[in-house]
């Protein structure tokens, strides 16, 4: 199985077929790192060769969420500054056939890397793996610019909450201006009960406001925290609803058509919502 590359403005065709997916959000703490770890793991579980890159220089986190923190020798800045070979900085996750992590540098800042460095790094990786999943830092500064520079596809994570939606809209505008769009949307931390009683923005409200394509709905789920405690991706937990949601998103990213899951399996009321969302693919 290989990743199919849609199109890329940045990579030379000779660079290989790997596809770059960047996960970003504007607002902090909405679930970018969680999504990167789980989409990377889910794509790897599907049989693809995947490399995740932690783009949050100075605030390294993807390593602990993936449970690979004790295996770090080199980081992304070491690769870019030529202190090690690309292969040496790719930490292999032994639980999955082909999942790798290139960790962020912890003691440097975002100015250690430029957007063109990221494009070069990604181009080298395209020849090695099917998918490169980049975890963007929050904000709209250098770290965000670095993360989107090599992207073939951008996934915006938001929460059903005013400031996260507002920031997502800013990011969508910036991505359009860079001609990197259209981005796709994941609404994370949905609480079906709150939506039902009218105290949380419903997915269709968020979609109407942001007017971009939906690629996933992820429920609020305690398993997310439990799995980050132990450093094992939730997509490996068959019982977790958030894990199921991330597995579905990974399949959609890989070009499969997967219906949107019923967000309230327990009370059945959001059934109709699930059906409405299903039209989105």
């Amino acid at each position, binding site marked *: 199985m290989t990743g199919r590359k849609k199109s890329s403005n940045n990579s030379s065709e000779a660079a290989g077929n790997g596809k770059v997916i960047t996960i970003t959000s504007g607002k902090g703490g909405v679930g970018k790192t969680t999504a990167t770890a789980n989409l990377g793991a889910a794509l790897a579980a599907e049989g693809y060769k995947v490399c995740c890159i932690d783009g949050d220089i100075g605030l390294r986190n993807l390593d602990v969420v993936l449970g690979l923190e004790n295996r770090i020798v080199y980081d992304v800045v070491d690769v870019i500054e030529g202190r090690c070979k690309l292969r040496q900085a790719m930490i292999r996750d032994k639980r999955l056939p082909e999942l790798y992590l290139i960790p962020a540098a912890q003691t440097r800042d975002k100015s250690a890397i430029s957007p063109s460095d990221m494009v070069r790094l990604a181009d080298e990786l395209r020849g090695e793996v099917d998918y490169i999943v980049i975890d963007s830092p929050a904000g709209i500064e250098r770290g965000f610019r670095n993360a989107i520079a090599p992207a073939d596809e951008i996934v915006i994570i938001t929460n059903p*909450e*005013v400031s996260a*939606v*507002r920031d997502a*809209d*800013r990011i*969508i*505008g910036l991505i*359009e201006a860079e001609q990197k769009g259209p981005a796709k949307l994941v609404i994370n931390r949905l609480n079906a009960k709150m*939506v*039902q*009683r*009218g*105290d*949380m*923005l*419903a997915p*269709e*409200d968020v979609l*109407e*406001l942001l*007017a*971009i394509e939906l690629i996933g709905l992820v429920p609020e789920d305690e398993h997310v925290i439990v799995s980050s405690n132990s450093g094992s991706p939730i997509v490996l937990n068959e019982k977790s609803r958030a894990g199921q949601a991330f597995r579905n998103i990974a399949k959609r990213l890989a070009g499969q058509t997967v219906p949107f899951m019923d967000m309230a399996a327990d009370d059945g*009321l*959001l059934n*109709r*919502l699930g059906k*409405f969302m299903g039209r989105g693919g």
Partner: protein
Amino acid sequence: MNFLGRNRKSANSAKERLKLVLIHDRTDLPPGMMEDLRDELIEVISRHINVDRDRVRIQVNQDGREQQLVAEIPLKAATRSRSR
């Protein structure tokens, strides 16, 4: 659209507030500027035709990710025909 039915409470005000905020964010048009724009528009148009000032409405509408400035400018009937 209201697929979930039910009374929408705080989520409703979140949505309404976000609608306005996003329009101003996207157009870089601060809410207070709309008033100035309205007054200037009335002034320019009044030089040529008789505008019913109190009923002028201008607003920015959202169409997908595009914004449209929509002005509704009712005109006053020519005074000649109305008088007497």
